[in-house]
């Protein structure tokens, strides 16, 4: 309810603000500056609300913070399938969502897509240890395939709703295992195969409440945390078994 109220207020504000072509033809604001991960967090929706001077097509690129991934390949050893080579993939964003009012390939030529990083498989990613170009390419392809299959990289041309060629809302659905850090929302206005307006906004994702406290304790005082928690686990196991036992005696 509160979120919709915020959206309405943003909408009203944007209606009063008339973007001029000469200066900034585009205004975009995420409906939240911060996503808090609490105990009941199972993914969330962030809305990007904006105004433009249409009619035009829109592309919104949501980029998550960088996250290293370990990629491994199964190989055959006699009759068995065993784990073979393992590579570390670095430098790629944890999440990359491309939203558009039409399929991106149909509104922008490849050169423009390349320029603005609108090709899912065009994200620069380093393969470690270093390999020959062809071998590294195979690993990159596998990386993008897995990212798309797991839903962390995807393109969607249904998530932006445009009202009267001027106002728009993009519904960005974020998964439950969201990487903490800064997320960038880059919005592009597209006319006649060219990007004519650009806006960059950000929001952050962070652990909150007891989740944050536990994470900090587990990382800042790891031995103390491990010792105390293991003791607590043992006492809890003991108490849960001992109390009913003493009652039955």
């Amino acid at each position, binding site marked *: 309810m509160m979120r919709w109220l915020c959206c309405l207020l943003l909408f009203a504000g944007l209606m009063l603000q008339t973007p001029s072509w000469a200066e900034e033809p585009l205004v975009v604001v995420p409906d939240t500056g911060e996503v808090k*991960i*609490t*105990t*009941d*967090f*199972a*993914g969330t929706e962030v809305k990007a609300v904006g105004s433009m001077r249409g009619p035009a097509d829109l592309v919104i690129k949501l980029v998550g913070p960088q*996250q*290293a*991934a*370990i*990629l*491994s*390949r*199964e190989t055959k*050893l006699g*009759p*068995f*399938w*065993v*784990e073979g080579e*393992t590579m570390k*993939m670095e430098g790629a964003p*944890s999440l990359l969502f491309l939203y558009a009012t039409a399929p991106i390939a149909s509104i922008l030529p490849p050169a423009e897509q390349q320029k603005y990083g609108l090709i899912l498989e065009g994200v620069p990613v380093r393969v470690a240890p270093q390999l020959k170009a062809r071998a590294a390419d195979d690993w990159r392809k*596998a*990386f993008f*395939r*897995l*990212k798309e*299959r*797991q839903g962390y990289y995807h393109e969607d041309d249904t998530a932006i709703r445009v009202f009267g060629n001027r106002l728009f809302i993009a519904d960005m659905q974020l998964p*439950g*295992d969201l*990487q903490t850090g800064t997320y960038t929302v880059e919005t592009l206005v597209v006319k006649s195969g060219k990007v004519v307006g650009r806006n960059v906004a950000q929001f952050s994702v962070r*652990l909150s409440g007891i*989740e*944050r406290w*536990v*994470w900090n304790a*587990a*990382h800042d005082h*790891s*031995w103390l*945390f*491990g*010792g105390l*928690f*293991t003791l607590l*686990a*043992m*006492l*809890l*196991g*003991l108490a*849960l*078994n*001992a109390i*009913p*036992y003493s009652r039955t005696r």
Partner: protein
Amino acid sequence: MEFFLPIAHMDVNIVLILFYGAVVGFLSGLVGVGGGFLITPLLIFTGIPPIVAVSSGSAQMAGTAAGASFLHWRHGNIDFKMGFILLIGSWLGGVFGVYLAKVLLRAGQFGNVVVFLYVVLLGFIGVSMLIESLQAVFRPGTPATPEAHAPAASGSLLRTWIARLPWQTSYPVSGVRMSALGPLLLGAAVGVMTSLMGVGGGFIMVPVMIYVLKMPTKVVVGTSLFQLLFTTAAVSVMQAGINHSVDPFLALILIFGSVLGTKLGARLGARLPAEKLRLILALVVVAVAAKMVVTLLIPPAHIHSMSVEVR
């Protein structure tokens, strides 16, 4: 009902995790195994990063083993003398195992060695136990003597060898007499497995104590849990300290589930005859081994797999 795990950094279904805990607790109460060989694959299958699954599983096993050990202690089922010697052995073996793991990791063979160790050990122990238990259950007239079948025959060879070792001592609770080196070496072997395979080692310890050391099944269960309690507790502290990978919420949900399962298991275990308890353990071990063999033989649906680093 979803719950966000701060260390695994993902949301999980509480009911599902409670169920996993209950299954493992049931086995723990019934036959004295910690269930590490079962809980780790189940958690990984749910999407929890392997290192968090192994580490939080250790904390859960420490909690579950504490409760189950208490129940067995009240029933006089723990041979403390045997338990302490096993524990010293498992800690020594554990330290050696950590170094062995380092060498294997450097050679890039750690994962494969672990999988093959699982298959060979679980397969050999499970099939041996299954044959013996089936004979005992379905032919109660014929005494299930160790000499009657292969696994126990190899057990008798080991027993003869242990009988020749120095430091012979008696274990009154178990009603056996043997060299202290026997349980010390058994504990050391289990300690190596704990470091390499992330398991408490109950599935190896229990059959060896029954078949080789000839201890009564109920004392074996209690003593195994006692040893398991301190081994898994040490692993849990080390994993939290070094790898920051113990997720307290995951471990707590598993403990609550396992308490319920442990009670049911212990209650059923008290009513069932020893040979049926062994048959149940044998079936579980064989099923897990068979599943691993199938996984190794069937071509994977996707040749690549990906995991993210736990920070």
